[in-house]
């Protein structure tokens, strides 16, 4: 993998981001009517309304607004949230952290379970446990998460009363920093249900990818070779076949992490998790442009960066892949 490849891919990623930022700007400015409607209280006089428009620069030509907007993004200024009346960045970072802690735990569970299970299913291919495993994996993938979430709340929250059903912490609580907030037992109790619901949904993907690549790897000569050497089937499975089959799973992992931020709006809604997804829903509902844009952009950046990493990872892990 050459340095020019990395550079070229990096530039491409930046270009992609620029295009998305542009689409976003015009979609918002042209798609919605007068944004001052969301900004000011009703019954404000036209003069005051014009003053508000001027203060937020909404009276300038659209192209000028676009250039200002690009400049602000480069400087890392995302404006002031209409709703919170505070800099968007402050709002977004906290929500982002909330989402990521949930999603990373969920993805970790899914992959730590899915990879060995997938390898096991490939080993047992054609048997009853293979079929059962596939059907279960597909079932978790077919069940919409908002529904499994609601079912879990009904069962463990309402009927059995084991776990809390909403939020990140039992209110009221005091936490000086983010880590104060999450390193508690109370937080864990809030985390279990949403994290497991997301993990179950994601489980199917590493499981099935792992199983299918394992089947492909099984057909190759070096497996025959390992068997011929008299290795135990278990060693052939986990030491030789599984290692080589991991590649597509790891790429998929990177992509999944990238999509995590934009991840699971519905789960955050069902469990009232104060994350990015719930925030963007709220922002779009209240026509809070700066907040919706910044949230969306953050999600897009993460996706692009992780896709980029996935590409590089693929090249680094598989020496057979020659990247120009």
């Amino acid at each position, binding site marked *: 993998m050459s340095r020019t490849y990395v550079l070229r891919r990096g530039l491409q990623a930046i270009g992609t981001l620029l295009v998305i930022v542009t689409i976003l700007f015009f979609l918002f400015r042209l798609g919605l009517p007068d944004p001052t409607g969301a900004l000011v209280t009703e019954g404000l006089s036209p003069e005051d309304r014009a003053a508000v428009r001027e203060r937020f620069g909404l009276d300038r030509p659209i192209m000028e607004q676009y250039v200002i907007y690009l400049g602000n993004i480069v400087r890392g200024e995302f404006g002031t949230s209409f709703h919170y009346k505070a800099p968007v960045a402050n709002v977004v970072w906290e929500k982002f952290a909330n989402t990521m802690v949930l999603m990373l735990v969920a993805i970790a569970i899914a992959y730590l379970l899915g990879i060995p299970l997938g390898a096991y299913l490939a080993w047992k291919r054609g048997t009853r446990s293979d079929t059962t495993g596939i059907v279960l994996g597909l*079932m978790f993938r077919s069940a*919409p998460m908002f529904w499994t979430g609601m079912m879990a709340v009904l069962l463990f929250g309402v009927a059995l009363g084991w776990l809390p059903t909403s939020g990140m912490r039992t209110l009221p609580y005091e936490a000086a920093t983010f880590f104060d907030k999450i390193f508690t037992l109370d937080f864990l109790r809030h985390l279990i249900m949403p994290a497991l619901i997301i993990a179950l949904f994601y489980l199917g993907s590493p499981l099935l990818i792992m199983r299918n690549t394992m089947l492909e790897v099984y*057909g190759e000569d070096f497996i025959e070779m390992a068997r011929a050497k008299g290795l135990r089937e278990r060693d052939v499975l986990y030491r030789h076949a599984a290692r080589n089959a991991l590649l597509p799973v790891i790429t998929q992992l990177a992509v999944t992490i990238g999509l995590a931020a934009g991840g699971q*709006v519905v789960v955050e809604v069902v469990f009232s998790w104060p994350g990015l997804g719930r925030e963007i829903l709220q922002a779009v509902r209240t026509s809070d442009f700066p907040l919706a844009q910044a949230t969306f952009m953050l999600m897009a950046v993460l996706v692009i960066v992780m896709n980029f990493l996935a590409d590089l990872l693929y090249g680094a892990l598989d020496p057979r892949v020659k990247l120009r």
Partner: protein
Amino acid sequence: MRPGSSAGSRPPARSRTAARTRYLAQALAPLRLIFHDRLATTGVVILGAVIVMALAAPLVATHDPRAIVERAEASWMTFDDGEWRVRTALGLDPLYDLDVRAGEAIAVGASGLALRHQADAWTPLPLATDATLWSVALGADGALAVGDGGAVVWYGDGPPLAATLGDADLLGVTWVDDGAAALIVGAGEAVWHLPLAALHEGVEALEQRATRLPSPVGRGLLLQAVAADVDGSAIAVGERGLALRWTPGEAPGSAGTLQPLTLPTFRGFNGLHVDQDSGRALIVGERGTLLRREGPDARWVEDPPPDTRALRGAWIGPDGQAWAVGRNGVALAFDGTTWRRDATGTERHFRAVVVVEGRTVAVGSDPFVDKLAPPSSVHWFGTDHLGRDLFSQNVYGSRIALLVGFLGAALVVLIGTNVGLFAGYFRGRTDTVLMRIVDVMYGIPFEPFAMILVLLFDPSLLIVILAISLLTWRTVARLIRSQVLSLSERPFVKAARVAGASDLRILYLHIAPNVLPLVFLELAIILGASIIAEATLSFLGLGPPQSISWGGILHNARLSGAWRTAWWWNVPPGAFIMITVLAVFFISRALEVIANPRLRTR
């Protein structure tokens, strides 16, 4: 190579068509493999069933999914161990009154319904009329019921006796003169005095010997209820605060006289009960009216009600404990100091309440909206917060799911396949531009983008389909492109090119059929994804308004706040989504084996 063998030369038109047909048949042949896979066959059967359900929704659905269902029935509920329990209905006609005497109770209702209650069991009495019976009074010799159009029914020793007393609707009846006569009240301030002896003599005697007493008020108001008081007189109450006191006549056989009675409110009265031992009394009426009397000579006091809906039935015991029931499942209880409202878990309208052998029993019910009803033989999946049938909603929900699923998937595959074909075949600049667009698409997270799209433009079916298809074609395009890249290097493509076939001809007639299995695989995968995407958007409240979909049902459930108790509301839509998508995935797995023969292991 399978296809393309006849493409170069120009055979006559007829055989060209035949060749084309054969050629497509060859391309589609591997699809038969689906039926070799048991899971895929299951998938086809399930998906087929869902499609049939969607197409035949009006036939499958038991109700109009949008219609608010009203139901009338002979409801009764009992108060056991501190809570009300609605018991199995006794029929489809509402019950309107219940009277009790010495451990025996009789209930009457619409269409002349009369039931005897003994030891927790009900036995129907023979029908004597088809008029609605509004009130019943149990005496020493039998029960007297009165109803619409002056209907009077006497259940004595022999067969029931039905007669007519005037033409006014009769709404209340009680025994006076130590059980020697009945006092009957009704519409138009009608008050009848009916000697018991007349009941024994037959219909004609009954009509001749009954006396209609002149009302001292004379405003033609409705008298709703009447009850004997402990001093031998009786009280009748009615609409607009009307109350009359009946006093027996001095001479034997006299019908007695009526005087107006002033009570501390002018609200309408619906029910009345006087305890014959202690002289305590309770009157109930409109807007939670509760009038209580602590003894025969005590003053009437108006109690503050815990619920302001109309009350219909009243009961007060010798120890001062009292009960009142009314519309929408309202049940109140008085413990001697304060009134409380008990949960009944029903919206049924109750008409009367009595205490029989230490147990409180209430009866109803007029047509009521069957809100949040658990599954029953009428509503297989219960009803929602507006009383709409959930089974029918689920059946109709399959239409939106499949419509959006198939249209979305078709659009996605159409865009994706064409982009993939062009990028892979023409390469160079075309490929670069198209693949850069695909890269941008990969940078956009789906859910947030769909949300923004749906909210920027008014939610509609079209926007939902567009939101799904505008992004998801990226995967298809990439997959098809890589396949086309290798296909276009194959000899049959070169042969076609040498034979002078145009680019488009090669692309669509030679290369496209070879990627068909892959296209079908993607179609199936995206069909499942579209169904989930539509459900997700509808669940977030961003789906097409006024339409019924599985996601929308769950959205309503969450919005109503009742989803934590009404499990029958939440479970079926999600299960339908899961089963449908699962069926599609089963099929797609078989297609995957066709598209990628290396997976065909054993």
